């Protein structure tokens, strides 16, 4: 493992310049453009950052200012972050799929005057929010397509030209600015996804993110030969850690996909060695594989079944280096040649050394599947406030129901209330303009209150049960952990989203969202005709299918002592997908529980009455911002529950 280059006073711009000096010709950034992977070396990246920073400075950007960054993962947007940091400014990446009205809030909160955006779509949204955001003055765009006749916006190339000229006129300016930077300066402001209330700006220092990146680099032996695909939202703390902080600290190569839709192809072409994806991506991949396997010839299907069965039995153990019978090892080696290696190749995972997942609970079957075919998939735990760096699973100590041990440099404690508390260099400096929230979340001893309820198991690994505030009590006095139940439901490929209710009530009831792709495929195979999402969701056969999943979850809950009372009594299948555009999910696709229970109050009432159907009309917002109404009569059915043995 290469030695650390990050000293105690390191800042991202200084590290970047160090890479450019020491390993100038090594690839730093790649992007697929017009069908060909383009590469920029570290020195080219440093040149671009220099020109960008000078350009911004020439346009009046000074220390302490915020630079909004909005778009898909594009090299120039990552470079803009470094450029802002070089000037002592703070990049503020924002979720690119949010509508203009949501932008306006963050733009105002962060007093944005300068914004670097990807393309016409984002420029349009900026211009739309302009009347609401008096501070916004300068908009720069990367992709000039369709923007020829726009006024008052500047192209990236023009900004680079301005910068190069400014650099020539003011030699030494850039290096002087970089030298002024201190490790305790704020390096980035990331907005929380806003599961509760308005998003808050989380201010992190260079020191915090470098500590987090450095810890993870040492933990997984990341180095310049590693390569990752950068495809998750830039505004998300995970992407900032993996694609920016670790990129500059470990000096590996980031690869930007050609477009959002080509990620699968790009993944195969690049073959990253280090990979991150939320559980839903792993789930989609597996669903696709399973669907395609069902169309394969009988021999292939039989082989696949046999060898995935074998992998389930011993694959994960072989990956962990545990003792496995010789015969199984031989069979596994054959399976590797016939099934596992080709499958990893199709998934773009042939070269993966370390893969992580986080952000939501991952199903045990799903998790085990990837490990069993030889993908070193692990979990971690962290949040925006902790640079996504609290717990990591060590190689050889991977479990599906924990999130790992405290990462190097992190102190972990469980409060009496069950809340997880953490302390370490990676903690946030503050919430922007919210001293009250800062004071509330960091206690006198310097521990950050994560808001998650968890326990530390026998091997010292942390297990997250639920959001601390979501854990409640039922009227029977039994513990009620909604996310825990929902996650159990969501482990079924046919169930995309579930929302359960039961706090303060005597029984638990649930809303279910079917997974359209998976259920549609299931229905097609059985010759069930349907006209669309709502129609499919209402089919009696689908109700029966989901009913079986619910019954199995009830089985499991019945055996979990304290949670036996949380079995689901009645459920319904929603006629529309819960959607961030309708405010039902956050941009990171977490359910906004309170909002959903208000919006669908009539349905909840019906669940707790004896009705067997309920009419509902809901407003939906289309991607283009227009709205429409959908109406449906939803059926409510009883689930098979296990009553407690008579006491």
């Amino acid at each position, binding site marked *: 493992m290469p030695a650390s280059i990050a000293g105690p006073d390191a800042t991202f711009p200084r590290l970047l310049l160090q890479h450019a000096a020491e390993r100038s010709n090594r690839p730093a950034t790649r992007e697929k453009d017009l069908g060909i992977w383009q590469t920029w070396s570290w020195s080219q990246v440093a040149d671009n950052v220099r020109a960008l920073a000078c350009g911004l400075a020439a346009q009046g950007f000074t220390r302490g200012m915020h630079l909004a960054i909005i778009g898909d993962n594009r090299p120039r947007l990552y470079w803009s972050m470094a450029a802002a940091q070089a000037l002592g400014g703070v990049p503020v990446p924002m979720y690119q799929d949010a509508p203009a009205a949501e932008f306006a809030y963050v733009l105002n909160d962060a007093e944005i005057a300068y914004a670097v955006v990807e393309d016409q779509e984002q420029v349009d949204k900026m211009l739309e929010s302009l009347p609401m955001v008096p501070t916004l003055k300068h908009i720069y765009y990367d992709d000039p397509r369709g923007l020829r006749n726009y006024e008052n916006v500047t192209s990236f190339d023009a900004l680079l030209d301005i910068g190069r000229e400014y650099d020539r006129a003011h030699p030494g300016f850039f290096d002087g600015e970089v030298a002024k930077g201190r490790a305790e300066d704020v390096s980035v402001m990331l907005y929380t996804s806003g599961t509760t209330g308005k998003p808050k700006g989380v201010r992190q220092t260079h020191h915090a993110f470098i500590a987090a990146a450095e810890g993870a680099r040492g933990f997984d032996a990341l180095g310049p030969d590693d390569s990752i695909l950068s495809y998750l939202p830039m505004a998300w703390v995970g992407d900032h850690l993996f694609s920016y902080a670790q990129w500059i600290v470990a000096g590996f190569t980031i690869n930007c996909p050609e477009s959002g*839709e080509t990620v699968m192809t790009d993944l195969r072409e690049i073959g990253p060695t280090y990979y991150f994806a939320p559980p839903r991506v792993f789930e989609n991949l597996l669903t696709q594989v399973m669907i395609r396997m069902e169309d394969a010839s009988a021999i292939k299907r039989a082989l696949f079944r046999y060898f995935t069965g074998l992998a389930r039995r011993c694959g994960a153990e072989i990956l962990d280096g545990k003792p496995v019978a010789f015969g199984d090892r031989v069979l596994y080696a054959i399976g590797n040649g016939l099934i596992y290696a080709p499958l990893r190749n199709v998934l773009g995972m042939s070269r993966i050394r370390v893969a992580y997942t986080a952000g939501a609970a991952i199903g045990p079957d799903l998790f085990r599947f990837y490990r069993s075919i030889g993908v070193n998939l692990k979990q971690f735990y962290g949040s925006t406030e902790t640079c996504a760096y609290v717990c990591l699973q060590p190689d050889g100590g991977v479990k599906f129901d924990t999130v790992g041990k405290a990462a190097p440099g992190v102190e972990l404690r469980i409060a009496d209330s069950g809340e997880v508390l953490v302390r370490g260099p990676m903690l946030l400096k503050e919430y922007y303009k919210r001293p009250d929230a800062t004071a509330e979340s960091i206690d006198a001893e310097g521990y950050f209150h994560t808001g998650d309820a968890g326990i530390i198991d026998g091997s010292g690994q942390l297990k997250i049960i639920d959001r601390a505030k979501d854990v409640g009590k039922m009227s029977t006095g039994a513990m009620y952990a909604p996310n825990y139940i929902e996650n159990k439901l969501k482990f079924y490929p046919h169930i995309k989203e579930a929302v359960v209710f039961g706090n303060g009530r005597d029984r638990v009831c649930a809303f279910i969202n079917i997974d359209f792709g998976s259920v549609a495929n299931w229905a097609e195979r059985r010759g069930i005709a349907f006209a669309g999402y709502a129609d499919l969701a209402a089919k009696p056969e689908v109700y029966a299918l989901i009913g079986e999943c619910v019954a199995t979850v009830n089985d499991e809950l019945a055996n979990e002592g304290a949670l036996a009372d949380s079995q689901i009594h009645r459920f319904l299948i929603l006629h529309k997908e819960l959607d961030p555009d309708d405010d039902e999910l956050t941009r990171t696709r977490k359910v906004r529980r309170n909002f959903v229970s208000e919006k669908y109050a009539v349905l909840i009432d019906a669940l707790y009455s004896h009705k067997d159907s309920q009419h509902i009309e809901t407003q939906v917002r289309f991607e283009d911002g227009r709205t429409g109404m959908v109406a449906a009569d939803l059926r409510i059915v009883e689930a098979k529950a296990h009553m407690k043995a008579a006491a």
Partner: protein
Amino acid sequence: MSTARQHGDVMLKLDHISLSFGGVKALTDISFDVREHEIRAIIGPNGAGKSSLLNVINGVYRPQEGTISFRGQVRRDMNTHDAAAQGIARTFQNIALFKGMTVLDNIMTGRNLKMHATFLEQAIYIGRARREEMENRAKVEAVIDFLEIQHIRKTPVGRLPYGLQKRVELARALAAEPSLLLLDEPMAGMNVEEKQDMCRFVLDVNEQYGTTIVLIEHDMGVVMDISDRVVVLDYGKKIGDGVPDEVRNNQTVIDAYLGVAH
């Protein structure tokens, strides 16, 4: 937006065109012109002769009467090869792609006229053939990028949904780097979102490449939004011609669409 565009000289002019198939009169005495860089819509009820008119423009049909002048050259009729060589490309109402070929290969066929290497050169892929292939592939990639179909580059066209096939057809037409693009119902059978995408692409093509576009479309919202001037046909006759607002308020046009009490 459309007012900001600069429209040039007359590029294509049809004078007193009449076309009949035996006793059926498809077009009767149609005259209209298309100026450089404009988006010109042709509308009309079913069977009004819209597609026939496009077929006359690119030489599939030979009108019995009238003349067509394209870029100042007056002729009795066009022929298809000539039309393509002079920069007229088109898409079809019912998609005409090679279903078994990939998107990339389909679009490459749009470059057919730009390739000059002999069969032998292409077979052994040396010298001119290699160079041409690379140049043409680069052009095609630019079109793929422009229409945002990178993700289906290697997918056989037959496996694509209808909306995307329409987009591939547009891509193939664009690959020919046309100066005049004829679109026959580019948005038929699409959902709202696909239509919006397609509108944006049509406007972008017009703006970015300065391509003159003649399109047939049934969706009045689309026509009124994106076109500069509109020709209205009914039973093979021209019953209206002008900017969208004029056409919208033209009583004959309203009658043709809504019907009149006799």
